[in-house]
């Protein structure tokens, strides 16, 4: 079946969930406002109508409780998808995630599976301030036992969600609010894509070179892919060809694709919407340096939130977030020396 149907990312996600729910009765969804509301960021829209409130369960505001319940259900043969409305709320339920969901397989020597997706909204840019705008990529990637996914567009989101639901281990599925294509929040053009109607699965651990280039490698993910592509376009006009890598999954991390690209370009710029220190950007740079620091023609660079809480005021928030201009500046400096 061919189709040129363009879907926003939120619909791609809910479609993936619906398709898995149709074929596998053990798949169900729990979370706050995921029923009639369809998820605050639309990731579960339409599911209640099709599957009813037995399999699409609005929960109390009890994240420890319902995520922990997800683990118990997963260990009892179900495949729950639970939504943590904003990733920023992880603090009230991290024990259920990192100490329970992520460790029970290990604690059972592999005898228990915990096939569970924890789906959560990330990211800022719309003045939702310091408790509703974080991405926390590094926080989740640092702790063992969870896979961590962060798609940049609808096509990837659908295929990665299918993989997440079928995976027998816990998966953090981190979707950026600003990519969901909601009627009430701005979204970059590239986030909504052609999405095949059939189910398909995108394997974890395969980064995607979303633009080829020979002069510098930009490694990034989620919302920042779009800013990186805009930067690359601007740079191309100046004769600088930047390669852009969309990680797609953080755990597992596709180190090979990064190393291959940097071996070619000799320059590395890492862009992340998470806090700068002790997180994703450092890991990528360290990966390259550990492999071979001599492959770098200039010092690697990184752009990320400069270790401050996300400020509310628009001018301040925009200042702390990487954007096409700051990315282009950084690539330029890397290529020309600065």
């Amino acid at each position, binding site marked *: 079946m061919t189709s040129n149907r363009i879907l926003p990312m939120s619909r791609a996600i809910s479609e993936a969930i619906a398709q898995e729910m149709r074929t596998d009765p053990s798949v169900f969804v729990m979370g706050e406002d995921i029923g009639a509301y369809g998820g605050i960021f639309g990731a579960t829209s339409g599911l209640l109508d099709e599957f009813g409130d037995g399999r699409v369960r609005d929960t109390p505001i009890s994240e420890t409780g319902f995520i922990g319940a997800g683990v118990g259900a997963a260990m009892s043969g179900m495949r729950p998808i639970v939504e943590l409305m904003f990733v920023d709320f992880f*603090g009230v339920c991290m024990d259920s995630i990192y100490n329970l969901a992520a460790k029970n397989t290990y604690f059972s020597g592999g005898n228990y599976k915990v096939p569970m997706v924890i789906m959560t909204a990330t990211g800022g840019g719309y003045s939702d301030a310091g408790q509703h705008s974080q991405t926390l990529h590094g926080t989740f990637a640092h702790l063992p036992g969870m896979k961590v996914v962060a798609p940049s567009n609808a096509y990837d989101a659908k295929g990665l969600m299918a993989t997440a639901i079928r995976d027998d281990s816990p998966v953090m599925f981190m979707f950026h609010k600003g990519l969901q294509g909601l009627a009430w929040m*701005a979204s970059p053009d590239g986030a909504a894509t052609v999405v095949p109607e059939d189910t398909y699965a995108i394997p974890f651990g395969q980064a995607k070179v979303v633009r080829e280039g020979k002069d510098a490698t930009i490694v990034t993910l989620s919302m920042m892919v779009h800013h990186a592509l805009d930067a690359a376009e601007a740079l191309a006009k100046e004769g600088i060809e930047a390669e852009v890598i969309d990680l797609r999954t953080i755990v597992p991390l596709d180190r090979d694709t990064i190393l291959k690209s940097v071996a070619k370009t000799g320059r590395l710029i890492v862009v992340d919407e998470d806090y700068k220190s002790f997180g994703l950007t450092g890991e990528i740079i360290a990966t390259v340096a550990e492999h071979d620091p001599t492959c770098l023609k200039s010092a690697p660079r990184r752009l990320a939130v400069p270790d401050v*809480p996300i400020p509310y005021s628009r001018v301040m928030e925009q200042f702390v977030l990487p954007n096409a201009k700051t990315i282009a500046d950084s690539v330029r400096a890397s290529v020309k020396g600065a």
Partner: protein
Amino acid sequence: MPSKSQVLWMYEVMEKARYYEDTMAAVYMEGKSPKFDIGAGTVPGEMHLAAGQEPCAAGVCVHLRPDDAVTATHRPHHVAIAKGVDLKKMTAEIFGKAEGLAGGRGGHMHLLDPAANFSCSGIIAQGTSPAVGAALATKMKGTDAVAVAYLGDGAANQGGFHEALNLAALWKLPVIFVIEDNGWGISVSKEKSTSVPDNSVRAAGYGIPGVHIAENDTLKLFDAAKEAVARARRGEGPTLIEVETYRYYGHFQGDPETYRPKGEVAALKAKDPIKRLRDAAIADGTMTEAEADAALARAKAEVDEAFAFARAATEPAPEDALTAVFA
């Protein structure tokens, strides 16, 4: 029964809070049409308005002193107003301006004002344990100041709330927990989230008084809060007060409210608590029509002034984002 000045104070505070929310609702839409974009306009980001919930603010805060601490929720304006947060700085903060309480770093869900002993938060039930800590501080310092923690009906199912209740009860701390029960946690009704009809019964699990105030009744709440505050000041420990209140707006501005039964808001508005207080006070002679009108006019003027101040205030420097991370 409140004194005349208390009634007048409550009435004025409630009108101020109401007019504040209605004004904010309009200002919030500036720059968001024809296409609603949450990040656009004069006031970007989420916006949770408390119109209809004014009794919870006025009926409790009327008993408080400046040295009493209050922690409020993600829906904080009415309580901030009742606790005496500087209205200009608060509005400037919501406008993201340099003159705001936090110079624009915090925004609508993060209004913190040491001068008024007020804070709030965007995380459900997060304010309950800091209120316990504020009460512990006053106890350790030997003053009779109290702390009030506000939370929603939805928040009553968050584990941290129960930890705070137990701690406050165990240590007999001067805390008043006020549940603003508007029947909803976003789109999920209280019935679908809470295993008991009234959260006030949960007080028994901590051996403390639990009071249920029906029908958003300012005067009944006044009495209950008076006793709770007095009890706290006497060193007899915490009280849980649950107030059946009304949410006129959606959960946040832009909420499609498709989950909401038709006619619910109209039915609530027919029982508007501000009007009820005004009518009752005028009827029983506590307040004259003229006094009420004057209070309303003062309230509106103050709000208008605050919005004018916020509008005229200056944008923060972008680099200011990097300061005030540490004390």
